[in-house]
């Protein structure tokens, strides 16, 4: 299938005013302003197939939102090209905009003092949705997002999670094939986060929608995204499956032990250190880190030598892997 989103050497440079701190700096900036170019996104290239859920990973200021803004036509790139649903987003006009939805976790379109349905009706007018279609889509979204009890309350009385669900519903009434979500679970509790994740997968499965999201919650990424785009300082560092990324970044595996047997007390940290790096040890639990390719053999030796009640081999926590990746830079680690 032809990709539904492509970015080719997408680059965005912002010109920002620089100013020294203090009174002197303020006056200087007024008299002779100085500018500095900041490259928010550099040479980013990727293609996304219809129906994919792709997550942008990266620390704050990495260029995720800037990329999202270019793909939704809110920003012109400095150079490079992009195609979204067959249009160049920043010149595509209304026809392009009808094919996408943008949901921003920290901003809302819902009218504060009115029930969410009023905003839905406004969007119905904006997107020229017929009565029958509107009823059908609303019923579907209300069902999937469990909004029945929420629809008639003023938005100001809704919880953050309920508001985000309503934002999603408002943004999907025109049934766009493309969803851009910037931090859709920001600040939500675990239950609400899960509900949103479940909904996104259901929505994709039902309508074949393509989803591009950014999130700081790794659970979002692991639960939703078949593919991640890792971006830092405006550069695309990695494009592929999350599992492969973890394997590439970390050459270590974790062996988690529960020691058993009557003589478990005789096992001490020193004994464990012979098998690998001890990450934690509080009898009867122990966590060791060993090189990835040695993990099976080491486990076998541990099982033979120590009184083990339970043993499992895990990847290090994903947050830690990603943190390490951004701290060290992917290139050095990947070699």
């Amino acid at each position, binding site marked *: 299938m032809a990709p539904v989103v492509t970015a080719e050497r997408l680059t965005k440079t912002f010109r920002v005013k620089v100013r020294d701190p203090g009174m002197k700096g303020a006056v200087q900036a007024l008299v002779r302003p100085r500018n500095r170019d900041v490259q928010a996104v550099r040479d980013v290239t990727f293609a996304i197939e219809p129906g994919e859920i792709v997550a942008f990973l990266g620390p704050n200021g990495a260029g995720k939102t800037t990329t999202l803004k270019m793909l939704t*036509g809110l920003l012109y790139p400095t150079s490079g090209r992009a195609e979204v649903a067959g249009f160049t987003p920043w010149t595509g006009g209304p026809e392009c905009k009808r094919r996408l939805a943008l949901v921003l976790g920290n901003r809302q379109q819902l009218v504060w003092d009115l029930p969410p349905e009023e905003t839905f*009706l406004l969007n119905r007018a904006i*997107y020229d949705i017929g009565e029958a279609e509107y009823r059908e889509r609303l019923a579907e979204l209300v069902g999937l997002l469990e909004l029945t009890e929420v629809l008639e309350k003023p938005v100001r009385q809704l919880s953050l999670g309920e508001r985000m669900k309503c934002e999603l519903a408002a943004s999907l009434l025109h049934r766009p094939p493309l969803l851009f979500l910037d931090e859709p679970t920001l600040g939500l509790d675990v239950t609400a986060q899960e509900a949103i994740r479940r909904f996104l997968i259901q929505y994709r499965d039902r309508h074949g929608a393509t989803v591009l999201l950014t999130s700081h919650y790794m659970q979002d990424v692991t639960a939703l995204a078949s593919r991640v785009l890792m971006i830092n300082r405006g550069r695309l560092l990695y494009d592929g499956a999350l599992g492969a990324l973890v394997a590439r970044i970390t050459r270590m595996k974790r062996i988690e032990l529960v020691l058993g047997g009557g003589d478990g007390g005789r096992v001490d940290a020193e004994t464990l250190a012979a098998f690998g790096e001890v990450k934690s040890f509080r009898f009867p639990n122990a966590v060791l880190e060993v090189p990835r390719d040695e993990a099976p053999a080491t486990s076998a030796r541990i099982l033979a030598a120590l009184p083990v009640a339970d043993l499992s081999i895990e990847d290090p926590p994903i947050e830690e892997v990603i943190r390490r990746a951004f701290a060290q830079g992917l290139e050095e680690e990947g070699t």
Partner: protein
Amino acid sequence: MNPMRMLAAFWRLNLAEELQYRANFVASVLGTVFYMATALLTLALFFRHTTALGGWDYWEIVVLLGVFNALTGVIEAVLRPGIGQLAGEVRSGELDLVLVKPVDPQAFVSFRRLDIWRFADVVLGLALAAYALHRLHRVPSLAQVATFGLTLAAAAVVVYAIWVALMSLAFWFVSVENIAVLFDAVYEGARYPVSAYPGALRFLFVYLIPIAWTTTIPASALTGRLRPGSALLAAVVAGVVFALARVLWRTALKRYTGASG
């Protein structure tokens, strides 16, 4: 998309919102009545020392004051809650959610919010103008009323264009939330006929910040002072000012999206 359908949806939305706060209506009308009374008192104070201001006598200026109040109603009902919020929306990024919609962003931002109670100001202003005409023993002809309607509509367009132009600055200077205060300060000048001002100010109000067209011209239409061609000229001025504001808005939006850099 159908602009009328969008406008109707906005009206519905705002009506639903405002009906929750009926007390606002009373407060708004009381505020306007008090405001008009103060303006009349000030005017009466002036006229203890003179019999005419820029060639207009007391009740003629009251007609103008009525027009001024009617336009203030339009400003408070439509412009301040609508496009007046632009600077805040640029700063918070909420404008982005407007720009991804398949609508004309200027129309959306301009008419999305209405403070419907303030439309009462329009009614009160027109009532004041009518009362002043009565005191002048003047009954405007049908042609005069029609001319008044045309010039008042042109005036509304001019005021709208000035707001669009001012608010477009928000794209350059994000911290212009107080720019509405600048408008208020200048618009105070429209309280009196433009002929009451010395030459330089008159030039400013006619050509540069065209507020002379907003009150003096419609009030002249009612009091029979307007030359026939002036009404057409007012319509042309409104068209030109609107077009200029639109160009400025587009340029500003291009800057916002980085299309011009």
